[in-house]
């Protein structure tokens, strides 16, 4: 133990001695991994005796490695557990102390050192997140994880934080915010365009994190009823190149079907470039949802309701019961919106008959609510029970629209710039140049190459 501490310190000190040079973290981390002394110690021992000896931020790397070792020792080794179940039972350790040490480490670590141990740091984040969710204290971790993401995004080449970079910890923040129903930080994170992915020699990036990030994005947007965004995010999950189906994709597809029914009244088709495998295999796995969709589209209210009841347990298990309830409401709303397209006036009793509502009073309150929410433009004449449907009063001639339009245009311009930048990166990439030069004399156009 003592010897370990001294070796670790010596790693740092030898480098600090040569103050002219910055620390060579790469070397430290490889030395660390070679040193196996603390693998024989118990987790509790490590936590109580070793961790306090290395204060962060100076000894960030040391702390990260030790904490990782502790977690590795205490985590349940049973296979086939999901992440949260895996952290629910920690053996032989003081949980509270571990969590506070973790928090301290995540909060105060040095981002320059983190860059060399991205994976280990991310693992700490995942563990911390899952444990907090398990303890139902998700709110506590929001700021910490947000800060951790920023630290992970540090890029030493440009010596700045690349906020447009996606890390594996992104999904953790969304998980926490969903669990705590606090979406401020999540929305801020989601509003950052993703223009890069953190994938280097010391931070791997598994497709799982990409999938779950967009899955959670979809869930957050759906919770806030931003259905259009939500559809976009779920679509991203389904569009990942795939030669196997992931459970995340299946769950996304289920939500995708429900939300597109609620929002558009029909199941939107997936883009053409969605992997064949996904298109072919996902439908049979979500047959109940398709049954639901066809009942919804064919206006079979009874069938819809009976399906909802019949598969209630399954929807509960898929955590889609909230969406199912919204779907049942949307049935009436969409029907009323359809009526506005076809009618100028219609009596309340006719509306009841055409939308299969229970009573005129129910229809009236529903329409009143919809008028209030701007979902339909109508007036109700209580004298003769007539509803007059109007055109959209938006005449597109007010300053706020101009403002919105300008905003959108600038958004598009930004996007265009991003694309240009990516193109520049490609066209200045050594591989690309090499290839172009190889073909320079042969008459093969670069466009030809792309076409091939």
């Amino acid at each position, binding site marked *: 133990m003592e010897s370990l501490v001294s070796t670790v310190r010596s790693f740092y000190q030898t480098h600090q001695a040569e103050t002219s040079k910055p620390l060579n973290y790469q070397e430290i981390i490889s030395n660390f991994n070679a040193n196996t002394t603390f693998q024989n110690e118990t987790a509790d021992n490590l936590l109580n005796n070793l961790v306090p000896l290395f204060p962060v931020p100076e000894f960030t790397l040391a702390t990260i490695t030790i904490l990782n070792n502790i977690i590795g020792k205490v985590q349940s080794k049973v296979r086939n557990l*999901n992440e949260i179940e895996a952290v629910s039972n920690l053996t032989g350790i003081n949980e509270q102390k571990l969590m506070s040490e973790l928090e301290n480490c995540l909060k105060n670590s040095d981002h320059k050192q983190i860059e060399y141990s991205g994976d280990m740091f991310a693992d700490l984040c995942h563990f911390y997140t899952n444990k907090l969710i398990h303890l139902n204290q998700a709110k506590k971790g929001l700021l910490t994880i947000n800060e951790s993401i920023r630290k992970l995004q540090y890029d030493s080449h440009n010596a700045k934080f690349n906020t447009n970079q996606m890390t594996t910890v992104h999904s953790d923040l969304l998980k926490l915010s969903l669990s705590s129903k606090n979406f401020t930080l999540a929305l801020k994170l989601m509003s950052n365009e993703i223009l890069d992915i953190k994938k280097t020699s010391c931070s791997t990036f598994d497709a799982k994190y990409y999938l779950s990030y967009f899955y959670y994005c979809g869930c957050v947007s759906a919770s806030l009823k931003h259905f259009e965004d939500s559809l976009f995010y779920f679509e*991203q999950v389904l569009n990942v190149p795939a030669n*196997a189906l992931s459970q995340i994709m299946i769950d996304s597809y289920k939500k995708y079907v429900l939300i597109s029914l609620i929002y558009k009244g*029909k199941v939107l088709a997936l883009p053409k470039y969605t992997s064949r495998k996904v298109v072919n295999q996902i439908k049979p796995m979500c047959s109940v949802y398709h049954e639901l969709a066809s009942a919804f589209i064919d206006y079979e209210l009874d069938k819809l309701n009976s399906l909802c009841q019949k598969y209630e347990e399954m929807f509960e298990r898929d955590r889609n019961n*909230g969406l199912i309830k919204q779907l049942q409401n949307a049935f009436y709303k969409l029907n009323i919106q359809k009526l506005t397209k076809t*009618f100028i006036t219609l009596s309340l009793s006719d509306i009841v008959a055409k939308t299969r509502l229970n009573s005129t009073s129910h229809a009236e309150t529903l329409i009143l609510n919809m008028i209030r929410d701007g979902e339909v433009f109508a007036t109700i004449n209580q004298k003769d029970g007539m509803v007059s449907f109007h055109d959209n009063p938006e005449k*597109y001639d007010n300053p706020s629209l101009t403002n919105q339009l300008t905003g*959108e245009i600038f958004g598009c311009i930004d*996007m265009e710039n991003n694309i240009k930048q990516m193109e520049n990166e490609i066209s200045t990439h050594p591989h690309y140049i090499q290839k172009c030069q190889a073909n320079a004399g042969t008459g093969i156009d670069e466009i030809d190459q792309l076409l091939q």
Partner: protein
Amino acid sequence: MHGELMNNVIVSIDDAEMDTENENNLSINISNQPSASSMVQAYNPNFEINNSSIDLDMYVSGYSGLMRIFRLIFLAEHCPTLRIDTLKLALNYVMETHNTQLYSSVHKQLTDAANKSTCQSVSIPSYDSNWVDTTNKKGAMKLEKLDTDLKSAKSLAFKDCIRRGQEDLADHFLDMGDLTNALKCYCRSRDYCSNNKNITNLCLNVIKVSVLMQNWSNVLSYVSKVETTMEAAGLGTETNKEEMSLLCKVKCAAGLAELNSKRYKSAAKCFLAAHIDNFNYYEIMTPNNVATYGALCALATYDRRELQTHVIQSSSFKSFLELEPQIREILFKFNESKYAICLKLMDQMKDYLMLDMYISPHVDTLYAWIRQRALRQYFSPYKSADLRRMSAAFNTSTGALEEELIQLILDGQIQARIDSQNKILYAKDVDQRSFTFERSLQMGKEYQKRTKSVILRSLLLKYNISVRQAPNQQQVQSSDQQSIGCK
């Protein structure tokens, strides 16, 4: 082995019906996007029509060969009042062939029908097992003879003889009702065709068998083969009688295939190209059929001008229409915008059409399309139309008309809105400016979404991230996302 194959004849009829049923189910499932057919009920292959005024002898005299028997069986299945008569007739015709399998099955149906009928006076011919045996023997003997003929022809390597041998064999298979083998033999003779005439003849034979087997894609591919052959030989341009007849046959077969593939517009086009002067295709259809199929498909899919130039004013099709005065009347009333009479006539004809084995599955769709077209045509010159008067013109109640109009408006076929209080249909006047703003905002959003997708996708490719099968895990990655759902 042949016995097995012969079963196929009977089975294939059922299969074909199953298929159409399945297709109908599918089309209902697919109808996510509003389509003109969304109002049409699924076709039920087990319908029955009781009072039909078909004169059997007249009906049958138009057809020949296997098609005649098939049509009779179809009639028997769907028209209980005529069942026994038709089956008896069918039995007689079957006795003229070597098709013992079909004989047994028809006879069985006949006995069933006779047992079910309450009337005692029905006398049915008893099962002629003697005939079955001798015919089976005769068939087998002829088969053997033809087979040896073919073999000897092959040993002589005399092309024309081999071809004829194959054809004879195929004809015999057809006679025995073994369609699969008939098709095989016809196709085999292809290698021994020496001139264009042989080839077209071969194609015609294949087309015939394919029609009987309801293999429509095969029909279409051989139709195009005939057409290219004739084109290459420069035939079909002269007014040679034989060639005209050939062309006519091909067009009719193609029309039938298109009709059954639910491409009604191209079906109409094919039928309209047929000429009555050289019509000689009774083994498949009658000129009356051509008139009915062609006119209905054209009514359902042609716009007013096309109808005028290609149907009403077409001299060749006129003579077909003369054969079916009722269809002609429907066509002319439609063109004169007398929709009430037109629709009434159509309703009167419906039972008759339902008993036609080829158009039967499409009657509902075609009728719905014709009706929608009529509604659209009626409203097209108006800015506002009184629903009461409109319903009078269409022979229906305002309520029912409203329902139909709603469907049309939702499908985007009529640009209008209904004032239900005053029962007036108003043409919608679109504010182009607002519409443009709305569209451009939408397009902008769409562009942003697409661009984002493109960026993300290129990132995935750049870093080579994809969902792969885990080497030693189950196919489905277990993950934790189920533990948190959205509320």
